């Protein structure tokens, strides 16, 4: 078990390394980037870039100093927001996005597992049909269609919730974004859970449980544990999907999170900002995947003993 943890830990640095190196070289070749400029840059930006990249040094030195500044948490100056560094911008934005994403994930897991389990228990019944249909819709309809519909419905027509904006960070600004973000994942998780539970309920060991007259709650306990395995495996990709989704949701609802900065940066050709976002997001996802792997070993003893 310890061996497995160490093995997983060891695989993280190479990936980050890859991401970071890619980022470095992409920056160098990007047309319009700091290295291929037709016009000179803003002197303040140049100054900051110089600090990080040591532009007059040989390439390998630049790379090393880039790595060094990364390790210090210095992601460089924002090209667009002249007065700020990327790290400063993210320090404000990251907690917001993280909260949004974590809440959406929690919501997706709770509602998705419950719905999937309910559908599986009442296989081919009305509950099952409703859940399956809803899940199909949730997986197919893009979130940038759902979001405006939500805004229209809850924000403008019913006037229950604000249409967008962050305001003071009060909870009511978060409800619609979190729900919109969570919906496709609720659909995906419920589908996964349903399929896994149906398989578990039809399996040979479920038959054994029934043959021994064990009460439904015991059978459910066993089936849920088995169904958790594919769901836990899905958390990694789910988190990635949530990150992707957050870009749209933050955009539409006007939430000042990492995703919004990322898109604004993309449209403004703010290279360092975009780069920084990629690195931060990659790091988060890798950390999450590590946790997921550990959780997986916790649930499935066969993995523990391999």
């Amino acid at each position, binding site marked *: 078990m310890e061996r497995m943890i160490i093995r997983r830990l060891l695989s993280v640095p190479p990936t980050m390394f890859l991401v970071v190196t890619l980022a470095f070289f992409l920056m160098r070749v990007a047309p319009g980037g700091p290295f291929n400029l037709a016009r000179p840059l803003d002197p303040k930006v140049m100054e900051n870039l110089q600090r990080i990249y040591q532009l007059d040094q040989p390439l390998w030195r630049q790379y090393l100093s880039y790595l060094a500044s990364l390790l210090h948490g210095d992601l460089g100056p924002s090209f667009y927001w002249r007065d700020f560094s990327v790290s400063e911008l993210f320090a404000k934005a990251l907690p917001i996005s993280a909260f949004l994403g974590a809440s959406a994930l929690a919501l997706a897991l709770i509602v998705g597992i419950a719905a999937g389990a309910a559908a599986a228990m009442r296989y081919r019944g009305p509950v099952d049909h409703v859940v399956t249909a809803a899940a199909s819709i949730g997986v197919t309809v893009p979130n940038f269609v759902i979001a405006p519909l939500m805004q229209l419905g809850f924000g403008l027509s019913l006037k229950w919730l604000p249409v967008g904006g962050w305001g003071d960070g009060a909870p009511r600004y978060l409800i619609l974004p979190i729900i919109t973000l969570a919906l496709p994942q609720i659909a995906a998780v419920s589908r996964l859970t349903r399929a896994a539970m149906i398989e578990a309920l039809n399996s040979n060991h479920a038959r054994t449980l029934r043959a021994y007259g064990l009460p439904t709650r*015991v059978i459910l306990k066993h089936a849920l544990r088995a169904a958790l395995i594919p769901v836990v495996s899905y958390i990694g990709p789910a988190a990635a999907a949530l990150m992707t989704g957050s870009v749209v949701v933050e955009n539409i609802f006007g939430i000042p999170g990492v995703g919004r900065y990322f898109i604004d940066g993309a449209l403004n050709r703010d290279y360092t900002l975009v780069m920084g976002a990629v690195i931060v997001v990659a790091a988060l996802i890798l950390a999450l995947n590590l946790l997921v792997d550990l959780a997986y070993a916790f649930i499935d003893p066969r993995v523990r003993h391999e």
Partner: protein
Amino acid sequence: MAAPLLAIRNLKIRFSDGRHSHEVVRGIDLDVAAGESVAIVGESGSGKSQTALASIGLLARNGASSGSVIFEGGELLGATPGALDKVRGARITMIFQEPMTSLDPLFPIGVQIAEPLVAHGGLNRRAARQRALELLRLVGIPEPEHRVRSYPHQLSGGQRQRVMIAMAIANNPVLLIADEPTTALDVTVQAQILDLLRDLQRRLNMALLLITHDLGLVRRYASRVYVMRAGEIVESGDVAAVMANPKSAYTRALIDAEPAGFKAPPPADAPALLEACDIRVAFALPSGVFSKARILRAVDGVSLALREGQTLGIAGESGSGKSTLGRALLRLTPCSGRLLFRGADIQRLDQRALRPLRRKMQLVFQDPFGSLSPRMSVGEIVAEGLLVHAPEMSARQRDGEAAGALAEVGIDPEKRHRTPNEFSGGQRQRIAIARAMILKPKLVVLDEPTSALDRSVQKDVLALLQKLQQAHQLTYVFITHDLAVVRAMADEILVMKDGRIVERGATREIFERPRQDYTRRLIAAAMLAA
């Protein structure tokens, strides 16, 4: 006479899948008295398992049953799940064929054994755990305090079945239903498990309903037997009486299907066909970053000599290395050691040089479902070898050869455009044989060719193999775990265990005067009719 413990009357079971439905059990009557051991014997598709499942309400969703199943005075068929749950696991328990999938891989065995104790015995968790320990001891699991925390995948097949038995007797049931309890286990383990069941039966005064396809088990462990075929009971009665004087033609055929006869050794001057000297096959097991690489010696120094016209039997349990040896002899698995085929050294040849020789040495596999390519027509499958070994043949000629080969093994050549899934297991095995025979080999390695087939089908396939051997002067290497089969088919036997040959000799010698302990145990466990 006391009322029977279990009385099944006119049980009918029907499965439907929307538009079609078919009846798998067509009205059977069956009794089990208290403390009795009754067997239901039949081949696959006879409906014997479904009978048991239906009796305790475990039929699949698309199945419907009618009739009556009276247990201890109460009607089980159609009872509410609540009523059934009181009976199942407490008064009637069941153990299944595949212990690996019957236990939940995610929970320790102690927890799983405790569950029926808590649900039916009213014990709290601690008391249930204690009782679980006792039960493990009762079923012969060593070091139960340690084992109780293990997970199913950490136990062997035999141990898992013992755990299932522990669960089954936990609440002192009056009836234990055992559905093919030992079919998935090794021969020596089979005997142990069944002896354990018989022992427990006596101790707990429990009735046993044994469902099996194996007449040997019936002879040894049951006092009464019902013979089922295609959903009907064709004969029933005391085991001794039925076995000695079967009234139904089907029963007679079943008994006759036990492999009988023997093979005469080839003449003394028959030339040597294959010589193998010190064959070794080793696999490196995947190693982690920090663990040492482990080596599995599948075949650990085996030497043998085959003469033309011989059938060499290689007998052993799973993991003995017999299949690996078979493949190594044909150089389908890399091995070290000397290999001479008709005097020529084939060990040194690379795959390309080996190819023309392959014509002479063929292999028939165990699994009739997996060994035929699902999307090719049967004719193409049979003729495929000709593409390599007779490239001058036109497509029409190949087709003609394929038709001929199929006819020889008893498959209607008109059906050669069909895909394998349209044939039964026995037919597929014949097709696999045709595929080997079309190249007119000299040596055929048969790796458990009939183990996946019903006894009656097996008999026909074995007869076919014998006929072909005579007709084409073939030499066979017959690999099997089934001692009855190897006794009937081979003239010389090698007994393998853990990659090594434990004993070798002429068939008669091995069976009448086994020298090694392991051989003796194997033969005893095989429960062969005298």
